């Protein structure tokens, strides 16, 4: 069944201590692929049936006021199978 996913990431210019911690741990474990790591949140929202466009609009609103803090974060809403 499809679900709605909201990805919330710190804005690029905002310090990301968690991402930095991961970025500096990786090479210590021998992983050298990353030039940068950012860590954010992923919300998986289930609705009854398949998401409607009204629901998506509502989720957008919720993402704006509850799931993210627009002062420091950006969000993306999408449907995932």
């Amino acid at each position, binding site marked *: 069944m499809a679900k709605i996913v909201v990805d919330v990431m710190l804005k690029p*210019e905002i*310090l*990301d*201590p968690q991402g930095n911690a991961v970025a*500096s741990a990786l090479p210590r474990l021998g992983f050298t692929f990353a030039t940068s790591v950012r860590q954010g949140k992923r919300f998986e929202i289930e609705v009854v049936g398949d998401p409607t466009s009204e629901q998506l609009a509502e989720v957008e609103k919720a993402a704006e006021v509850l799931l993210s803090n627009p002062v420091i974060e950006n969000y993306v809403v999408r449907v995932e199978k």
Partner: protein
Amino acid sequence: MALDTVAIAQTTPDDIQPFAQLGLKADEYARIKEILGRRPTSSELAMYSVMWSEHCSYKSSKVHLKQFGDKAPKSDALLVGIGENAGVVDVGQGYAVTFKIESHNHPSFVEPYQGAATGVGGIVRDILTMGARPVAVMDPLRFGPADAPDTRRVLPGIVAGVGGYGNCLGLPNIGGEVIFDETYAGNPLVNALCIGVMKHSDIKLAKAAGAGNLVVLYGAKTGGDGIGGVSVLASETFGSGGSTKRPSVQVGDPFVEKVLIECSLEIFAEDLVVGIQDLGGAGLSCATSELASGGSGGMKVALDKVPLRDPSLSPEEILMSESQERMCAIVEPEKLARFLEICAKWDVTVTAIGEVTDGDRLIITWNDQVIVNVPPRTVAHEGPVYNRPMAQPAYIDDVNSQVVQLPIPSSAAEIRATVLQLAGTPNLADKSWVTSQYDKYVQGNTIQSQPDDSGMIRIDEKTHLGVAISTDANANWSYLNPYQGAKLALAEAARNIATAGARPLAVTNCLNFGSPEDPGVMWQFAESVRGLADGCLEMGLPVTGGNVSFYNQTGAVAILPTPVIGVLGVIDDVRTRTPMSFDVAGLDLYLLGDTHADLAGSEWAFMHGQRVGQSPTADLGREMRLIEVLLAGREEKIFSAAHDLSQGGLSAGLTEMVLRHSVGATITLADVGISLLSESPGRVIVAIEASKTDALSTLAAKYHITLSKLGTTGGDSLIINDAVISLAELRTAHTATFPKLFG
């Protein structure tokens, strides 16, 4: 993106610069030109504008704050006074203690978690900078109405931020305040206090001495934090090349700060620095200009060497960035290798960015081009000074001439209802919902913390030397009479530590007010400073430092004048402190001090929406005699417990005492309503064994302090005359409020 250099500035004297957008007045801009003998470069303009801001230059408050020096009592305890990052006092046995309080009000409204977190981070670095190990924090907080929807956003965020940062640093939180009033809606107050301990010989100062010594920047990389304002420079002066989307919110990394603390303490222990300064407000502009002017004035910095988190930053932005968790040290060249080694051990980024020079100019280059060439004192210390107009606001006479009209309980049912209502009102309710989010045990030296009258920590495990500290403000009284309000807050803070048996030693303060451009607010401020300075002189307590926060105002509505006063005291043996409450039945309860019908500015008046009348008048002579009684009583082991009375009067004081160890009390009061609700200053409840009655009377008589019997301890109820309140229902009333409001 063209670089503005000193050479260019000399040849283009008439370029238009966006000084007004940066907050500088035309005459301030003219003065900069006069100092430099030319127009400033954009980097110089950036530096002057931040350093001459209200926040950094104290331009509106300076003329008043002078009184703390002018009226300073003679004190042998003061090792470092006002003017350094934090004051330092001698607490004996070779130990020195440094403590200071700072505000982070505006950022905490915008982003409660990060605002509060970085507030804690900033004050901790100030303490570290003095050479001390930070050992505890406190957080006096003020919010809009407890049940307002925005308070539900702001309060949990701020509390989580204070805890998130302080807990991660391993600093026990040993006290604070949580007060609600509608004027703080939109202007929450987040004041953060930190205490640090060191040996006398470890004191460090912010000065760059010795030509050839290196300027070393260490800690986090520099990003675009907190420089929203300067984007105007980037965009206006430099076209659209620079990024205009700089975050005005700073995000803290407490882990980096924790590592920075340990790294710095190792560096200090090996005596590797000549001078040191943290990077707080105004970042590198502040650190370089203050360090240079603390020395002989000469310093050269290669700004392009600063490690960047965001490579697109312009030099102006780097100078103004308020990225957290950074320090700037002055290091002798032969000690640099060891300095770098210690940084490597802790995985701390470190770079030598310049050196101390002969001469008296601060010269900053960008890829070898000179972009700043200024006398550093003019940036750091010779900012504008305003004697702002002030006038007693009209409300003063109006409210002072009115008399509070309040219901006064007298029947058993009314007494019960009143005590329960006070126990649960947000300003007096149990604050565990907040304080259980703070680690109070870490470091293993916490002797007292919430809900005790003061925080107390052990400094030496062998001798049991300790310090106690309390912060207080009574904005309701300050509103009615700012002069008295400041004195009363000072007295209360001092009394709070003396109840435990610690002798008051020194004062810090955080003065939270509305707009200084409002003559009424300016008057409130001036009166508060005058009251505090007079009070400190009378009590013989030096002001060691503090902070001013203006513009706490929504539209025309200013916050209540809120001078938060912190008093630090010493106790020679923490094991012998007087506890806040009793844990056995059969003790006698007495009240030290006089009770008058002091209801104006009381919590009871606040609960009835009345903000009129006259505040009590501080009698500091009597407060000092009361303190002597408390100290002597502790030494002579007279007291089983002692608890200060303040907001909520005797009703609140008794509630807190009986709930502490779940031992009730039976109290008999004449004029019961006033006795329970009055907030007359200078009162303390003490519990003694009957055998100590004579000793107590003798002591009270010696210091001319009124002594009256209240009752005895025991049982599982608080009984006041014929009103019986079970501890269970009292506890429910006291503890249910916060969880209900904040989940």
